[in-house]
């Protein structure tokens, strides 16, 4: 039933699947980019690649953009393809996100991000812990108190499998708050909507989810955001407290970005990075970004690799503790 397992986050991104190339106005930096998407049409990767392609071509930074969906192996098939056919894929950019780090750690596929050329991290989303609007819990302190009182009845849900992103965030937060990450009862749901229903029906006490999704739900009056994994409060929800403010020293960003084939010539790499860097100032990008509720988190080249190494360290430490590695 994988066909039907599309989370809300993925679907909001699907809305971005508009790929009409417009006339070019600015100076063209790259003739053409072929986007390789490791998942099917309509997912989060698909929306990111097509949205970025749309902004780049409409702004005239890139002449034409083409897209190829290559699903399979949780993204591993596309990574393997890019590595095996590196020579003929200098014109290809592959989109990926935090799961490339998680899945290479768990051995879902044999490669990791070091086997590829890192181009840029482009956007991101913080994580958030939310509770239902009628819940007696109003802050992380309340949640921790409820957890101390009855760990078994204070289950935290999320939209990913155990060991996946939402679980890791929940565990990371509890760990930073001085609790045993293994004691946290994490309940997985296959799509954002079902996890939401479980939260409102009282099956779970709190939900670990993406921040942009949490903001939509909070605006609809469905949930209260009790903690965000950002360094500082985010403009989209100025009332939502960060974890750090509440004395829980942890941050987490679910990034999305682009990779190229190994051995990509320096000048080509520089051109791609230049095109992406220039994209942030265009109104075309702002339109795509706003439509999808993405947060600009730009990490180019070395910054990107430092960031990924840090994240890999953070995640692998936690996964070892949780017994997934």
């Amino acid at each position, binding site marked *: *039933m*994988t*066909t*039907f397992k*599309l*989370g*809300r986050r993925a*679907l*909001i*991104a*699907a*809305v971005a*699947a*508009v790929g009409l190339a417009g006339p070019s106005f600015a100076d063209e930096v790259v003739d053409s980019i072929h986007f390789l998407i490791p998942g*099917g*049409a*309509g997912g989060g990767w698909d929306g990111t690649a097509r949205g970025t392609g749309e902004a780049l071509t409409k702004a005239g930074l890139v002449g034409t953009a083409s897209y*190829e*969906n*290559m*699903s*399979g*192996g*949780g993204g*591993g*098939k596309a990574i*393997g393809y890019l590595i095996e056919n590196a020579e003929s894929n200098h014109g290809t950019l592959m989109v990926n996100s935090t799961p490339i780090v*998680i899945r290479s750690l*768990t051995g*879902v*596929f044999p490669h990791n991000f070091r086997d590829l050329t890192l181009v840029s991290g482009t956007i991101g989303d913080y994580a958030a812990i939310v509770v239902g609007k009628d819940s007696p819990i109003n802050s992380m302190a309340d949640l921790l108190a409820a957890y101390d009182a009855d760990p*078994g009845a204070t*289950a935290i849900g999320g939209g*990913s*499998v*155990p*060991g*996946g992103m939402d679980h890791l965030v929940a565990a990371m937060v509890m760990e930073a708050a001085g609790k045993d990450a293994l004691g946290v*009862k994490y*309940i*997985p*749901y*296959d*799509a*954002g*909507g*079902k996890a*939401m*229903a*479980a939260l*409102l*029906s009282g*099956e779970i006490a709190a939900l670990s989810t993406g921040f942009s999704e949490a903001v*939509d*739900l909070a*605006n*609809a*009056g*469905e949930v209260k955001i009790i903690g965000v994994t950002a360094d500082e409060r985010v403009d989209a929800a100025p009332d939502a407290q960060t974890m750090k403010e509440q004395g829980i020293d942890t941050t987490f960003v679910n990034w999305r970005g682009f990779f190229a084939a190994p051995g990509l010539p320096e000048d080509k790499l520089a051109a791609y990075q230049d095109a992406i860097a220039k994209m942030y100032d265009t109104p075309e990008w702002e339109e795509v970004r706003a439509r999808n509720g993405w947060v600009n988190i730009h990490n180019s080249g070395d910054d990107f690799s430092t960031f990924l190494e840090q994240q890999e360290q953070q995640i692998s430490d936690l996964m070892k503790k949780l017994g*997934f590695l």
Partner: protein
Amino acid sequence: MLEGLLIGLQTAFSIQNLLMVIAGCLIGTFIGMLPGLGPMSIIAIMIPVAISMGDPSAALILLAGVYYGAIFGGSTSSILLNAPGVAGTVASSFDGYPMARQGKAGKALTIAAIASFAGGTLGAILLMVFAPALSSVALLFHSAEYFALMVVGLSAIAAFAGSGQVAKAMIMTILGLIMATVGEGALFNLPRFTMGIMDLQSGFGFITLAMAMFALPEALFLVLKPKDLKGDDGEIKDLRITKDEAKAIAPVIGRQSVQGFFIGVLPGAGATIASFLGYAVERNIAPKQEQEEFGKGSIKGLAAPESANNAACTGSFVPLLTLGIPGSGTTAILLGALIALNVTPGPRLMVDEPQIFWAVIMSMFIGNLVLLILNLPLIPYIAKVLAVPRNFLIPFILFFTLMGAYIGQNNATELLILVGFGICATALKFADYPLAPLLIGFILGGMMEDNFARSMQLYDGIAFIWERPMTLGLLVIAVLLVLLPSYRARRARARAAGIADGD
């Protein structure tokens, strides 16, 4: 409410919006007929068009038209080619396809159109009246109840018990459940049973398996057993339904519209469960001689899932509009579209933007009506597909079958899986094993496992079965649904053997 109705009517009846409904229905119907393109993908395709219109009401009306059109179109391929493109129409092929094979394709399509129309319309009425009150019903079900509901859904296989194939049906169901476990598991993010093949990481695709179990063996069967072709050489008779038939299916449609609607309201159930349950329930309450007909071209067996799945689709709008929770993949996509149009569904929608809420409801009525008006005259022409000579039709079916499996994932491995399973399925078909239970097991298996695993975790064991009365009740119903037909069949056999049974 009257005021709301008027606002809705006013919005929906502008010329622009009427054109939107008609365009949406047409696009939905024709694309929906292609197996492999279900409502979800068609809506995803249409969303950029809808968003570019800017007006949320018009956009939603267009999308609702596409949605209904796609559901209707989807049952067409189920009935004519035995190629269900969406899980919700699998049950429609159980009786729809046998009807088409008997030359009653026109009648089958007419029944499907009327049942869909009735299911959709009754669903919209229920939605209109009860939507605010139902938002709490949607939250009554926990994972434990969903698990029990899937078990009840599985009891639909009992429908195959009457023909003395209980054991075979059970084996096939279990095979289906086993196949559902391939891929990343619910409890752990590591691959299971993939034999190291990366393409199996996310499990078997529904479309691939549906085509392999239904459409491909059917086509191969026609090639391998050409003698069977006599008698159904494209002759189309019985286009209209008779008064008696209408009388027979009317209560079925009524019951299943209501039942389907309420199942659709639950965010974790949806049209697929609704159609299987509808089929199982109707078969169980049908008189004995009619029960024999189920699976062999019963009009009730076609009307039940068709009204149930349409009513369930309408029902899934309840959690979407009142809670902002998408109950199905399709409503999840619609939610994405709504958010992109700056409309936030949720408890405040009816208060803040009543014109949108009511325009959606009115567009459901108009969409269903337009669909019926557009499609009834077209049915004789659509049914003519079967009049195409076999040596052209079979390659045509094969083409659409293969395309359907490829189109969703753009993954050529799906084709190999499809052909491999298709050949196995053909062999099983020759050995007289029913293939539908396998697909039912496969469809429900994943959801069942997820909900079971969650309940086990929440209750630290299987205590949820007796600690939650609703779960226990549903499980008891499931047991009865399975045992009752076998018991009745045994009693009938006993009676036939001349043994007095007391009454």
